[in-house]
């Protein structure tokens, strides 16, 4: 079976009850359930916490907060540990707060779709988007952009 007919494997990350985003299959490294957060004073609301994972200092992104610009609840939830490439071509880890554990999906080229007005802000952090089987537009996020200063703090 070729890739096009089967689709490409990706992880669907449920940020809250309404918003899902997707990342590539190999970008998800680990899932931490109910982690212990350490707050960094004066950090932006969308990225105010650190978790310690495997002797790494992992910044945790609350993309729902980034999207809305509001303070979100601090329910422990689940953190997806993702890997991305740093400015010096080194591998770095980041965390993304989720409502539920990630779900693996297959995405086909024919699912690619246009951005809707309500998802305009996601363009900053995304490579593209696709329409899920439920008809929802799902941004495919660029992990490096999510964890870089210039993109996320605009």
């Amino acid at each position, binding site marked *: 079976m070729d890739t096009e007919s089967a689709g490409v494997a990706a992880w669907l990350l449920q940020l809250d009850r309404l918003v899902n985003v997707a990342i590539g299959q190999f970008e998800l490294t680990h899932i931490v359930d109910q982690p212990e957060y350490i707050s960094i004073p004066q950090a932006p609301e969308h990225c105010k916490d650190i978790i310690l994972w495997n002797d790494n200092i992992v910044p945790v992104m609350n993309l729902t907060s980034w999207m809305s610009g509001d303070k979100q609840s601090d329910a422990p939830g689940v953190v997806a540990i993702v890997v991305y490439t740093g400015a010096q071509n080194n591998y770095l880890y*980041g965390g993304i707060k989720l409502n539920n554990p990630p779900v693996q999906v297959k995405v086909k080229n024919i699912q690619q779709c246009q951005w809707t007005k309500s998802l305009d802000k996601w363009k900053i952090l995304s490579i593209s988007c696709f329409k899920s089987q439920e008809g929802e537009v799902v941004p495919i996020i660029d992990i490096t952009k999510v964890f870089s200063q210039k993109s996320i*703090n605009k």
Partner: protein
Amino acid sequence: MIGEMTSNRLLAPDEACYISKLSFSDIELLIPQNEILSIESIYELEDDTGKGGHIGVINKQGVKLPVYCFSDSMDIVDYLPEDRFQCVAVRHNQGDFALLCHEVVNIVLKGMDFKDIPGCMDNGLIPLTHLCLYQGDAGQTKLGLVTHADFLYKYISRKI
């Protein structure tokens, strides 16, 4: 020395960092020991609020140093929290000032790997220069919030 480190520089395993750990509320700041001028009791604090955002002053050899107090989110506050017992005078290039702390403990850390503040977090407002991992008293891994007197002074100047 931590004061001379470059970003993400891993010090040799036997290279010692002499650090003062300033604790207040749930925060522990790590500052190079050579930037600590003195540690005074809270009873040395003289009431002198004024427009500079400081909560009072301490007298160091005839010079009045402004004393600042941080909240648990490191905002500058003009009241004295119950848990502050020590007043730490710090030295930097543009003058000296003091901070109210719960406790000051000197520690020696070896083989430290000081990490830059993650880019996604770096909004230009964080009063820290680096983060690090170190072993706590009970052997547990702790997150160190690293800063310098110069950096804190600039942070305070921006806030007031």
